[in-house]
C-alpha cells in the first residue's frame, strides 16, 4: 500500500491505496467522483479523459501513485469553468450527447481543442477528437458544438493557447513528488522466488545477425537418470525417440542428416502456443556432447523463438547412473516476448525437462526390461499451477490493437 496525496478539484486529498490503482478507479471508488467514466480501460475510448496538471490525460492508464502531488480536475470540477460552461450549452443545442457515457471525456477533450486550436476546420476538430469514441449520436453534433464555441470565443477576441499553458517537461502529473522519500516502498527482497535460477545472460547484447547469433537469455539445467552412460548416449542418437519423450513435441517426418522439422505445443495456463519450426542436431561421440539448434514460430501470438541447446552426457555420482547437463539459450520475439524476462520461460522449460526425464526413465526401463515397441508416455506437461492467467483472445486482440493489424 502506498500513500498518495493529490489535489482533486482544488481540494487536497490523501489516501492509502494499492499502487496498481489507476487514477480513474481512485477517483470513482475512493473519492466517489463517478463523473469520470470507464469504457475500454486500455486507453482507446477516451471516456476516462480528465485534466491532470491542466492538460487532458487518460486516467485509466495513469496510476494514481504516479500523480503524487499533481492537480487533478474531473468533470465535476469543471462546473464553473468558462470554456466548459459554453461547451455544455453548445452540446445541448447541437445534440452533442445522447446516453452521455462518453460525454465527460468528450467535454475534457473538447475543452482542450477550444483552448489550444486557433481556427480549426471541421477536419481538424475531427482529427483532434479522434481519441474519444461515441457509440450513439455520432460525431456531427459534437463537432458542431466545438466549432460553435471556438468561433464564439475567437469572435470575442479570446486567443488560443497552443501549449495549453503547460510549461513543465515530462508526463502530466509527474515530477511533483519528493523523489528521496519514495524508493523504500519497494517490496523487501525476501519475496524473491527462491526456486528460480537466474539466467547467465550474455553481458554484451548481440546484434540480430544469423552468423553470430547469441541467445538473449540462457540458463543451465540438468538431470540424472538411473541407467548407464552408454545406454543414455545411444538413446540420445535416436531423434524420434527423444522427441517422443518431450511433451507436446512431434516430428513432421524422419530426420535427414540431423535436420528435422516439427512442432512443439506449449501450454501455460490458458495460453497455448504452437511453435512450428526446424532444428539441426549434431552429436560428437568422442566427447559425448551434442547440440540442437532450432527456431520456430507461433502463428497465433505472432511470436518467434530461436534456441540453442547444448548437452553433455557424463557418468553420474553412482554406478550405472548418468548425469545430463543441459545449457539452454533462447531468444523470444513477438507478443510472447513480454514474458521472456519474467523467468517464466525457464519455469516452463524446467517443467518440460521434468516431464522429459520421467518419460526418458520409463522408456529406458522398458527397454532394459526387454520390452519392444513404444513405451507408454507417463508424464504430460502440467502447467496448470503456473502463475499467470491471460486469455488468449485478449492477447490476440491486444496484439492486433498495438500493431494496428488484424490477425
Amino acid at each position, binding site marked *: 500500500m502506498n500513500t498518495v496525496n493529490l489535489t482533486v478539484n482544488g481540494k487536497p486529498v490523501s489516501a492509502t491505496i494499492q499502487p496498481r490503482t489507476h487514477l480513474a478507479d481512485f477517483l470513482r471508488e475512493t473519492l466517489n467522483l463517478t463523473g469520470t467514466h470507464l469504457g475500454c480501460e486500455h486507453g482507446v475510448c477516451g471516456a476516462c479523459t480528465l485534466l491532470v496538471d491542466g492538460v487532458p490525460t487518460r486516467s485509466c492508464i495513469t496510476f494514481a501513485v504516479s500523480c503524487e502531488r499533481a492537480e487533478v480536475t474531473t468533470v465535476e470540477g469543471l462546473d464553473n469553468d468558462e470554456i466548459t460552461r459554453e461547451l455544455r450549452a453548445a452540446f445541448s443545442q447541437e445534440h452533442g450527447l445522447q446516453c452521455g457515457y462518453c460525454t465527460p471525456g468528450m467535454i475534457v477533450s473538447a475543452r482542450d481543442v477550444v483552448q489550444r486550436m486557433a481556427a480549426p476546420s471541421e477536419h481538424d476538430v475531427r482529427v483532434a477528437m479522434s481519441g474519444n469514441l461515441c457509440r450513439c449520436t455520432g460525431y456531427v453534433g459534437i463537432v458542431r458544438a466545438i466549432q460553435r464555441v471556438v468561433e464564439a470565443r475567437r469572435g470575442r477576441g479570446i486567443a488560443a493557447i497552443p501549449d495549453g499553458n503547460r510549461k513543465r517537461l515530462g508526463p502530466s502529473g509527474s515530477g511533483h513528488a519528493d523523489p528521496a522519500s519514495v524508493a523504500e516502498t519497494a517490496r523487501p527482497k525476501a519475496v524473491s522466488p527462491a526456486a528460480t535460477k537466474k539466467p547467465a545472460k550474455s553481458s554484451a547484447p548481440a546484434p540480430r545477425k544469423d552468423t553470430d547469433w547469441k541467445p538473449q537469455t540462457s540458463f543451465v539445467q540438468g538431470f540424472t537418470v538411473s541407467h548407464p552412460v552408454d545406454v543414455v548416449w545411444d538413446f540420445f542418437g535416436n531423434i524420434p525417440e527423444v522427441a517422443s519423450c518431450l511433451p507436446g513435441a512431434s516430428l513432421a517426418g524422419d530426420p535427414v542428416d540431423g535436420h528435422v522439422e516439427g512442432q512443439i505445443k506449449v501450454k501455460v495456463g490458458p495460453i497455448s502456443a504452437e511453435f512450428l519450426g526446424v532444428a539441426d542436431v549434431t552429436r560428437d561421440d568422442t566427447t559425448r556432447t551434442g547440440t540442437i539448434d532450432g527456431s520456430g514460430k507461433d502463428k497465433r501470438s505472432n511470436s518467434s523463438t530461436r534456441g540453442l541447446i547444448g548437452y553433455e552426457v557424463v557418468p553420474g555420482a553412482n554406478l550405472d547412473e548418468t548425469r545430463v547437463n543441459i545449457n539452454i539459450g533462447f531468444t523470444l520475439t513477438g507478443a510472447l516476448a*513480454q514474458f521472456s524476462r519474467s523467468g517464466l520461460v525457464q519455469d516452463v522449460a524446467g517443467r518440460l525437462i521434468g516431464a522429459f526425464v520421467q518419460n526418458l526413465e520409463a522408456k529406458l526401463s522398458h527397454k532394459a526390461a526387454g520390452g519392444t515397441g513404444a513405451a507408454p508416455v507417463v508424464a504430460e506437461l502440467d502447467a496448470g499451477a503456473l502463475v499467470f492467467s491471460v486469455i488468449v483472445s485478449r492477447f490476440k486482440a491486444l496484439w492486433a490493437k498495438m500493431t494496428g493489424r488484424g490477425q
Partner: protein
Amino acid sequence: MKPVNFDYARPGEVSGALKLIADEGLTVKIVAGSQSLGPMLNMRLVQPDLLVDITGIEELRRFDERPDEIEFGACITHADIEDLRIPDVTCGALPSVARGIAYRAVRNRGTVGGSLTHADPSADWHSIMAALGAKVVLRGPAGERTIPVEDYMLGALEADLGPGEMLVSIKVPKLSRSARWGYYKSCRKTGEFAHAIGAFLADPDRGVIRVVIGATESRPIVITDAGNIIGDGRAERLDAAFDSHAVSEVIEAAGMTNPIDKQTHIVALGRALEQAQSA
C-alpha cells in the same frame, strides 16, 4: 481489467533506478508515461513484481542544446516536442511527427524513451529518429554506451538492452538549413498504429541522404546512404528523383515479399517525398 498487485518505486536518480532493476529475483518493469505499458498491465499481459517509475528523475526531464545536436532525456513527452518546449533543431520534423502520434491525452504522458524502448515496429519515433540519424544513450552496470537508434530495436517489442540497462537520453543531430525531410504513415484510423511508414532526410550540406521504411513486421529498414533511391538530395523535386525499383529491391532483400505490403511501403515513401518539408 485490473493489473496484478505490484510494488512501486519512484527513484530520484538514474543510479537508484539501475539499482532497482538490477534485482534479477524480481520481475521489474521500468515505467515512464505508462501509455503502452498501462494497457498491457491492465490486461495482465505484463505482471511485474515491481514497477520503477522513472518520471521523478530530473536528469531524464532535461534537454541540452549543443552546436551540432540536441540531447534530451528519456522522459520528454510527445507533447513536449509538439509544443516546442524542447527546441526544434530538425526543420520541423520532430514536432510534426509528434503531432500525429495517437491522441493529445496520450501525448501529454507518453514519452519518447518509453516509445523507443517499447519497440513497436509501427510506432513513429523509431522511423523518424532513424531517418534523422538520432542516437540513444543507454546506461547500465557497465557504464554508458551510445548507439544509433536503428540498432536499438532488435525486433518487435525487443530493444537492445542488456541486463540492468536503461535508456537515459536521445541525441538528435541539428539539420542544416538546406535540409529537407518527409514523413508519411498509412493508418486505418487517425491516431492508431501505422501499417506502413515512409521517411527520409536529404541534407546535402552535411552529406546525409537517409531513407527509412517503417512499420514493417520487425525493425525499420534503414538505408543510410540512399543516393541511389532519391538522388543527391539537391533536385528541386525529390519525388522526381525517386527510384521506386531500387527501394523495392531493398525492401525485398529485407525479407518483405508480400506484394501488397511492399507496395504500401513504397507508396508511403513516395508520398513522404512528395510532401518534402524544409526549414
